[in-house]
């Protein structure tokens, strides 16, 4: 009785050791919630990096890691981009794969049964590639036999989505002049996109916008070096020169659907030229809209009106002192009131 039991135990332990391979992927690139890496046309040639980790044993044949437009499972075809091939005796358990959409598109022309080869420029429609791992599984009556068919052993399945289509050209529907600012309404932005407004001073007939009579004085109307650089929270770029402008181009962006883009830190009385661009979720940028000129205008709030009328209030340090005193009184009385001693 004891001998058959020991034999059965040894057999069972062997069966347990025969575990099929499994591959887990991680991405070095930010993905969306469904493990999709969206690639714009401008990054078509940029390599994307994924790390893979293998567990279990390779059972005959090979373990393949590849990218395909089809579904995962089976051996990679000639039109798929093979990235890793591990034989059954290979003990490698982890590694990285780097590949670009450009490589994926080129690989599609490698066979006669798949799609045609394409380049970053010729591929004008959206296309997705799955990152897969496939290997022969362990199965059979006793669970120890290598199966002939390949199956998907990778998880999660990352998707590399190539989106070469730029958004449609937006339009600037309205520009509302504000005090030292312009509020720009941009139409034509799709959901999950970003509205970008670029602005630069309009060059005058003379030298620049800071020296014209209608643009204020040199000191306050903005010069080539100071326009848009004050505390408006904007970055300066020179990537897109606006025709007929002078000085740096200021770029302000805002998520679509969150209202007007407000450009602050401008100089009242100076004319600015604006154009809008839409950047979609993939990162593709639309052509620039038609440019629009606008001029911030000074407006008067209550304090302007009060000071203009001769009011003597200037705020400042006295308020801080009073605030401290008030805070101290507030704290002392709060403690006192919280004691809640019963009187009757």
């Amino acid at each position: 009785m004891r001998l058959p039991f020991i034999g059965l135990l040894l057999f069972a332990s062997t069966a347990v050791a025969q575990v099929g391979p499994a591959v887990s992927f991680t991405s070095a690139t930010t993905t969306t919630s469904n493990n999709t890496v969206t690639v714009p046309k401008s990054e078509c040639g940029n390599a994307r990096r994924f790390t893979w980790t293998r567990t279990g044993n390779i059972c005959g044949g090979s373990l393949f890691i590849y990218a395909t437009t089809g579904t995962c499972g089976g051996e990679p075809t000639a039109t798929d981009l093979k990235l890793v091939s591990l034989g059954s005796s290979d003990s490698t358990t982890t590694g990285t794969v780097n590949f670009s959409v450009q490589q994926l598109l080129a690989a599609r022309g490698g066979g006669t049964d798949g799609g045609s080869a394409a380049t970053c420029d010729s591929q004008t429609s959206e296309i997705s590639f799955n990152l897969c791992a496939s290997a022969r599984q362990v199965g059979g009556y006793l669970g120890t036999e290598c199966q002939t068919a390949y199956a998907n052993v990778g998880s999660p399945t990352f998707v590399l989505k190539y989106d070469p289509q730029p958004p449609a050209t937006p339009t600037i529907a309205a520009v509302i002049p504000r005090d030292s600012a312009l509020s720009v309404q941009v139409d034509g932005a799709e959901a999950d996109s970003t509205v970008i407004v670029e602005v630069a001073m309009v060059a005058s007939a003379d030298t620049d916008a800071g020296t014209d009579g209608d643009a204020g004085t040199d000191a306050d109307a903005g010069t080539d070096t100071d326009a848009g650089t004050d505390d408006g929270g904007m970055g300066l770029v020179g990537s897109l020169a606006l025709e007929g402008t002078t000085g740096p181009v200021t770029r302000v962006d805002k998520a679509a659907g969150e209202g007007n883009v407000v450009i602050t830190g401008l100089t009242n009385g100076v004319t600015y030229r604006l154009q809008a661009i839409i950047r979609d979720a993939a990162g593709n940028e639309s052509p620039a809209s038609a440019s629009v000129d606008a001029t911030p205008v000074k407006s008067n709030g209550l304090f302007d009106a009060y000071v203009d009328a001769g009011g003597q209030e200037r705020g400042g340090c006295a308020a801080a002192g009073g605030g401290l005193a008030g805070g101290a009184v507030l704290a002392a009385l709060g403690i006192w009131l919280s004691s809640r001693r019963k009187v009757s």
Partner: protein
Amino acid sequence: MSSTAVGLGVAALLLAVPAVAQEVTIPTRSPRTGAVIFRGGGYKPRIDTEKALNGATPYKDTFGDASLLLIEGELQRFFYQGIGTAGLGLGLGYAEKYADAKLDDGSAAADKAALKVLPIQLNAFYKFDYAAFRWGIPLVPYAKLGLIYSPWWMTKGSTTEVVEGSKASGGKWGWGGTAGVSFLLDVLEPRFARDFDSDLGVNHSYLFAEYTHADVNNFGGKGLNLGSRRWMFGLALDY
């Protein structure tokens, strides 16, 4: 056991039941130590009365004749409870008003101008509630006198205004006197009032109207006058 003994036992039990019930329903009053007050009303600062303005009316030019909506809360602590009630109170409020900023030609600009005020008040008060509690007259007149500190700031667009290098924010000291009358709500629903006390410790509830005379201009100093003459209405809860 004799039938006499059983009869005595039943009689004792029947007598005990009403006694227990009576003990439960005896009304009780929790001690009264202070009050919580919520009030609201229009607040129109007397900015345009500043002498240096020489008759100019920047507040009216910006906001017209409209008042700010002032919401206040106040905590009171009773120190004397005899012929009436006296004590100290600490109040905190907030008021704001928006209007279109003006262009130089007087037309409306796209920016919004706003005045915001956060008045803090420490006051001494007396309320004649003796008649209400003693004779059931539900009206309680009262008066307050207090010290006021009002932080303020003015905005245009989304930022605090800056004019000629001066930032439009600060704080003003002042004083205020208030007279009002409260209506004791307990007389409308006495039982509910008792439950309110036993469950939450709220002894009395009042609705009130009061008039405030406040001078908030650093006791006659130069600059903004945030004083006002105003009516306010609210709810007071004694606890």
